[in-house]
């Protein structure tokens, strides 16, 4: 199966789960963003180009299933996916700490950037309060989910070099 097809299927599955399962996994009102998990994993295993393109498509799907303006999350996730791919491909370190750190930074960056874009569009009137109540909790939740899901997602999305953990990735 081609990489593009695998990525497309992964994003489609993420869309289905985002509509059906994610709302029921909300913790203190924070709904997990499964597109972020797929895009970050693709960026890790395939690099910045795949991260950027999948980020755009995944972000667009996320915008489509929401109720707000179309485009902001596509913008944010394409930049985050691309940057994550660049970082993961060009930073080398042993162990799990670096990938986890990249995921955490990517998650927080995505939340902050999305908040900024919404504020610019006049849709985020409580930006500073959202940092504490939404962005940081979301970033923590997504990082935890990424740590749990990454080895499995990476194994599916990069079949030619299966990995079992962050250690293998690094």
């Amino acid at each position, binding site marked *: 199966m081609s990489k593009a097809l695998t990525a497309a299927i992964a994003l489609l599955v993420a869309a289905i789960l985002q509509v*059906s399962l994610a709302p*029921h996994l909300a913790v203190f009102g924070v709904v997990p963003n499964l597109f972020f998990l797929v895009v970050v994993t693709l960026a890790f295993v395939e690099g*910045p*180009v795949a991260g950027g393109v999948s980020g755009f498509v995944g972000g667009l799907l996320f915008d489509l299933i929401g*109720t707000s303006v*179309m485009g902001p999350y596509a913008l944010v996730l394409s930049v985050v996916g691309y940057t994550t791919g660049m970082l993961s491909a*060009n930073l080398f370190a042993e162990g799990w700490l670096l990938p986890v750190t990249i995921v955490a930074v990517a998650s927080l960056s995505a939340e902050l950037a999305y908040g900024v874009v919404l504020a610019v*569009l006049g849709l985020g009137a*409580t930006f500073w309060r959202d940092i504490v109540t*939404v962005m940081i909790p979301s970033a923590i939740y997504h990082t935890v989910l990424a740590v749990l899901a990454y080895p499995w997602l990476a194994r599916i999305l990069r079949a030619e070099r299966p990995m079992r953990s962050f250690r293998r990735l690094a």
Partner: protein
Amino acid sequence: MKRLEIDTRRGAGRPLLLVGLVVAALILTTLWYREGDTGPLHAVRRGIVAVSQPFAIAGTVVTTPFRAIGGWLAGLGTSRSDYDALEAQNLDLKQRLAALEEAKLENERIRALVDFADTQNLKTVGARVIGRPTDTRQRSILIDRGTGSGVKTGDAVIAAGGLVGQVVEVTPWSSRVLLITDADSGVAVLVERTRVNGIVRGSIQGPLHLEFVGKSAAPVIGDVLLTSGLGGVYPKDIVVGEVTEVSAQQTDLFTSITVASRVDIDRIEEVLVIVGAAAASSEPGGGE
């Protein structure tokens, strides 16, 4: 050596591609704002709502047993020894009882809804909630009634405790409702006791906030807020919530007022859509 070559190729970026993606996203955003509700992007979103309906229902159905098991386990702690002794004999009875109990609760909820609608003299359509918010920032639900049941964009949605939100997307079989707790939502209200007008806005954090009320006209804790009917978005005199906190700094122009909805919006299961109400609909999200 081969591994190094692969990694090098993998790490090669294409800045122009990234610029292209960003520009494409900005163009989409611009088009979204410029096109009307009947534009192609809005049509695509309506299509997504229609397609996502069965998946949302499936998610609710699949997760229901897990939620029920959680509740059942929580109940075990009070009389575990009795359950151990009579578990086999009682299992069937428990299942029947649970089904009856659920039917009774549902009956009570629906009766309360109908009574509420009758009291308000509203023409309504009952609907079940089949989808929950898919995003932390955007608070909307999916209901199982659409244009086939007479629902249209802009219709107000209520529950037994009061206002829930407004229909923003409609398909033949389902509708998406923007909740009053959404940060982009706004409801023109008046304080029942003083008749002072204001706007209730949602927030990502959850609480509602009453805005544009001066310090001299500030309500007190416990005051009830009703829809004012101004702007024609929502029918008049629907309960929006109660004031739970009032505070103001000396330098503030307006008072900071927190409002709690009487509806448990995060757990709501049935709603009524007000169809054919006297008040006409307008732009969603607080255009009042």
